[in-house]
């Protein structure tokens, strides 16, 4: 197999994300990243106009959102600069999001490369299993860092595997666990590995853990491979150089900025998070929280396949039957989720922080799925039919979930949770935090009088402005700071913000919503209007 199939799947991913992004609202963080990207774009323009001034004033433009490195936001900025500011081809938000789709496509490409080491069918199944759930599909659309760092974690794994010679472009040459490839790998592979690690470092701090994982992987390899791997590890030193180059904030006073970055995440605030009827506000968090959440939000076939994949990898590890590549996948998957089982790491944000765990189990899960089809074909079922049955059984529930819930991805729950209403009864987080407001913007545009003041609740001012710039919200509608100050209120249902609804009733003198967005009966966004205003009940 050539790279044609992974490339085709990557292109398909990009097209699917591009085609389905219009209704995806802006999660709270995305609004901040839009603002940061705008600031960085101004810096790029200054760099082109007056390089010396740009180099001098990095702090002024890059201090915004100092807590995350610059690469992803720089790409959002460059995309906006080219496709919106210069060419005028794309609306603002789509231009910002374009690099995120590219990261999604890269993730597909690398997953297909990994899974292709098992079989061609696995190469197709692996990205399909990852993306075939509304939660993962939704996150693929956002100009945020979660899918980019997930993609780069997998990408670093692939680059490392290629650099030490355990993964070849042509998957027919799978390296047996204990043999050393006869030819030395070209240095450009090591260079690319170091560069990709730098990119990961320059996207999100999840990358801090990668060197430790790779070191342990190297040490667990057979002797010949171990030596080669240990010789490859120093290429990681390229990482800080890429980080420095991609984050101009570090160009002045780097120690302070690095310290601020580390300190921000070492002391990250804990947001309230609703979990089995309890508001989790701080440590200690339930140890199995991330696994339980995955089981509840993903479609049932994926839950079972990913669980089987994890169990199979662990079983083979315990029996020393893991190939170096599968050992790498296990290590990276473990490193992606274990920090969230420490009971002290902030856990808000659904599954987005450990997407790489899901991604790195996908090749093994795909292999198991393809293996089940292969066994059935040995029993007499035509192979194509067996693969079709496997694909339909594993993917149709997820496709249904996407068709049913998209673009409200933070609200999606799988069959084990009883879907969205079952999760509400179980006492699970309804959404996070405000992207679902897109469902009621058309109503507000249609009913609110000119200049109306609307309380948008968890929609931050950055996202509010982005909705107006995207043409999703009328430009004359004003941002109110609370119900007392508003004519309309669009309340996003959160357990921890329940006080806002009675507050609105008291301020507006009505308890009857004017409209709302209800997903399978569960309140997501409830709109109130002061009596007498257009649209009021």
């Amino acid at each position, binding site marked *: 197999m050539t790279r044609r199939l992974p490339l085709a799947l990557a292109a398909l991913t990009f097209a699917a994300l591009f085609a389905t992004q219009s209704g995806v609202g802006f999660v709270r963080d995305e609004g901040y990243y839009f603002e940061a990207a705008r600031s960085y774009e101004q810096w790029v323009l200054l760099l082109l106009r007056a390089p010396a001034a740009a180099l001098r004033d990095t702090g002024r433009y890059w201090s915004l959102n100092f807590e995350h490195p610059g690469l992803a936001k720089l790409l959002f900025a460059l995309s906006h600069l080219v496709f919106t500011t210069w060419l005028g081809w794309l609306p603002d938000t789509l231009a910002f999001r374009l690099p995120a789709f590219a990261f999604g496509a890269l993730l597909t490409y690398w997953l297909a490369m990994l899974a292709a080491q098992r079989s061609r069918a696995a190469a197709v199944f692996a990205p399909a299993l990852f993306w075939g759930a509304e939660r993962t599909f939704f996150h693929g659309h956002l100009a945020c860092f979660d899918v980019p760092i997930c993609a780069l974690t997998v990408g670093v794994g692939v680059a490392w595997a290629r650099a030490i010679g355990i993964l070849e472009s042509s998957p027919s040459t799978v390296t047996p666990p204990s043999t050393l490839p006869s030819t030395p790998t070209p240095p450009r592979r090591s260079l690319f590995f170091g560069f990709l690690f730098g990119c990961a470092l320059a996207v999100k701090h999840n990358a801090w853990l990668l060197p430790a994982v790779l070191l342990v992987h190297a040490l667990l390899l057979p002797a010949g491979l171990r030596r080669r791997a240990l010789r490859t590890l120093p290429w990681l030193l390229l990482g800080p150089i890429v980080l420095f180059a991609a984050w101009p904030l570090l160009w002045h006073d780097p120690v302070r900025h690095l310290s601020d970055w580390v300190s921000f995440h070492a002391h990250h605030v804990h947001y309230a998070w609703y979990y089995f009827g309890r508001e989790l506000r701080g440590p200690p968090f339930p140890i199995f929280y991330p696994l339980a959440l995955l089981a509840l939000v993903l479609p*049932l076939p994926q839950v079972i396949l990913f669980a089987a994949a994890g169990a199979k990898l662990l079983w083979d590890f315990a029996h020393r039957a893991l190939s170096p590549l599968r050992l790498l996948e296990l290590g990276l998957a473990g490193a992606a989720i274990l920090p969230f089982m420490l009971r002290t790491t902030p856990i808000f944000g659904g599954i987005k922080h450990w997407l790489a765990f899901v991604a790195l189990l996908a090749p093994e899960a795909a292999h198991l799925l393809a293996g089940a089809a292969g066994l059935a074909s040995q029993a007499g079922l035509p192979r194509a039919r067996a693969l079709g049955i*496997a694909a339909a059984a594993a993917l149709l529930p997820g496709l249904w979930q996407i068709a049913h819930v998209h673009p409200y991805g933070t609200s999606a729950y799988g069959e084990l949770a*009883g879907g969205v209403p079952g999760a509400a009864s179980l006492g699970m987080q309804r959404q996070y935090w405000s992207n679902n407001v897109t469902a009621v913007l058309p109503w507000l545009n249609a009913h609110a009088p000119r200049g109306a003041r609307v309380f948008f609740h968890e929609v931050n001012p950055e996202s509010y402005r982005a909705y107006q710039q995207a043409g999703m919200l009328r430009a004359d509608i004003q941002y109110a700071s609370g119900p007392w100050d508003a004519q309309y209120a669009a309340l996003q249902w959160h357990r921890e913000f329940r006080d806002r609804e009675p507050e609105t009733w008291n301020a507006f003198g009505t308890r009857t919503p004017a409209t709302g967005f209800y997903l399978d009966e569960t309140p997501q966004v409830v709109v109130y209007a002061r009596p007498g205003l257009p649209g009021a009940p």
Partner: protein
Amino acid sequence: MEDAAAPARRRSDRARAVPLLAIAALGVCALVFDVTLPLRLPGDADHAEAAAALRVRAGPRDAVQLWPPWAERARMFIRTLPVRTEEDLRAADYPGVERLWLLAMPRAPFARLSRARAALRERGAIAGEEMRFGGLSLQPWDLRGPRVLSFLTDPREEHEIDYVPRQCMQVRIGPPPDPGTLEARGLGGVLHVRAGIVGERAYQVARGQVRVEVQIDGAPLATLTVPPTVPPEPGWRRIEVAAPSGEHAFAFRVSARDADRPFCLAAWTTAP
């Protein structure tokens, strides 16, 4: 030899299809659940019919309790009755409510309507005839609670405590020398006082407790202490105390060292 081994080989061959069959069964089960879920939930017409039934049958001392408590889309349809979303139906206060209409989605996943009914039974309520409107169930419950003599706080104002909207009035918390005060006149009997800190500040344990001193005709009658909420302890605190019969002036003096918190109080008297 070949003939004897053939059935075993066929069984072995068939067994190879089991993993795929298992995955297929899993997929079918998941899909059946997904596709049928909307059929188990009420539609607009069901809500409208239930609301119409309530308009016709409900009286002035009735209220609607939603079940599960998150099923608040019903608020868009029910405009003639107070709507309650209590989570603990056994302990919930329904002051002034003689008949409670339990409007439920019995086929919603994990709805556990039987638990709601059991809780109402445990408090002595008597069930009436259940009506069905598609995915909705409507059942009247005679609460058989004590008769309210006086509302000392306005039941129309609501605030959230323990994540449930409560009929209570916001009262300023004052420092101990200058407590916030709420005054009302009403008939004596059994005095019910409920109080709690509104919103997330209820859970900030470093802020200390709030003290509610209850006075009747200027004399101390009782004290209610509201500490920061530490689940599973409730944040909505309660006392019941006997008040002499006849009309009296009640005063509730609310104080704490940390006064920067929204605080809510409800009080009413019932016949002994």
